[in-house]
């Protein structure tokens, strides 16, 4: 996957109080993604954009768009990435 495809899959991080606490509690960061994107594609796109390998991903479709809860290996890794992205 090249960076152009990755940009079109991951739209932006979804920041609320609830997703904010997910970083510390569940090692997860929540992104809004393209409606048609699949779980493996999301994992690959995160790797391409942020150089961090995710462990897993859960998705749900809401009125805000498709949410992807991307899980990372440790709390530190999730927290570091969240800081870099500008979530925290």
């Amino acid at each position, binding site marked *: 996957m090249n960076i152009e495809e990755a*940009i079109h899959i991951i739209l*932006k991080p979804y920041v609320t109080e609830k997703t904010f606490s997910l970083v510390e509690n569940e090692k997860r960061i929540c992104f809004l993604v393209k409606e048609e994107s699949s779980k493996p594609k999301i994992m690959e796109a995160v790797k391409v*954009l942020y150089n961090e390998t995710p462990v897993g991903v859960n998705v749900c479709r809401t009125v805000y768009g498709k949410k992807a809860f991307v899980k990372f290996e440790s709390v530190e890794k999730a927290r570091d*990435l969240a*800081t*870099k992205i500008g979530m*925290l």
Partner: protein
Amino acid sequence: MKVPVLSTSGSQEGEVELPIVFSTPFRNDLIHKAYIHLESHKFQRQGRYPNAGMDVVAESNSPPTGHGQARVARMSGGGGGRQGQGGGVAMVRKGRQAHPPLAEKIIYKMLNKKENKLALCSAIAATASSALVNLRGHKVDKIDSFPMVVSDQIESVSKSKELSKIFDALHLSQDIKRLENRQKRRSGKSLLRGRKTKVGKSILLVVNDSKNLSKACGSLTGVDVVSVKNLSVLDLAPGAKPIRLTVFSKSAIGELGKMKSTHLELMVITR
């Protein structure tokens, strides 16, 4: 991360350590938002004359029935001409506009300071990615390292001739040539309003002091110069499309190291 510093003749002249700004991840959504909002600051408010189409003596008959005519307001008076024609309302010829542009409408889009700063940091960091520069359509053959850092000699150049020689040596002139034969006559309103042709953007030079260099860039198509303190997302991602081919001077890299932002401070702590 270390990148080579190139001399004006194209040879390597040492190395420089990139500041922490360059480790900001790429946030396309923020760059797009910042561009759209900052661009709105250039717009001028538009409005129409508030009484346009209503400076007429037109009344509807009361009661408006029984004349075998539509019930629109009509001009009073006699002697032909406008007399008897509809006027003063939106639906008739020579009447007012239904919803004209209003000068009172606020078209200035506010942007949060921290959001703007993060977008700028992200855009600066993106200049270090060859994939993103390619994505915008720049020609970058034979350019090995990104971002391109050139020695401070470039800041004293004030002649286009000298500058184009430097671009030749740095393999940058291929990107300026890309814009040749692109100037087409545009049609429509933009032509009438004095925007006859549109040329793309090529190289952005980010320097500490742009006094001399800005004189040299005038005749080169698509080349812009900006000093570090005035750097904005508008320069780095024209059309909200990341990211422009950028050349930094060595002292400009030093100035970027002094950049302050809450997110950069947090990044230092997590390191």
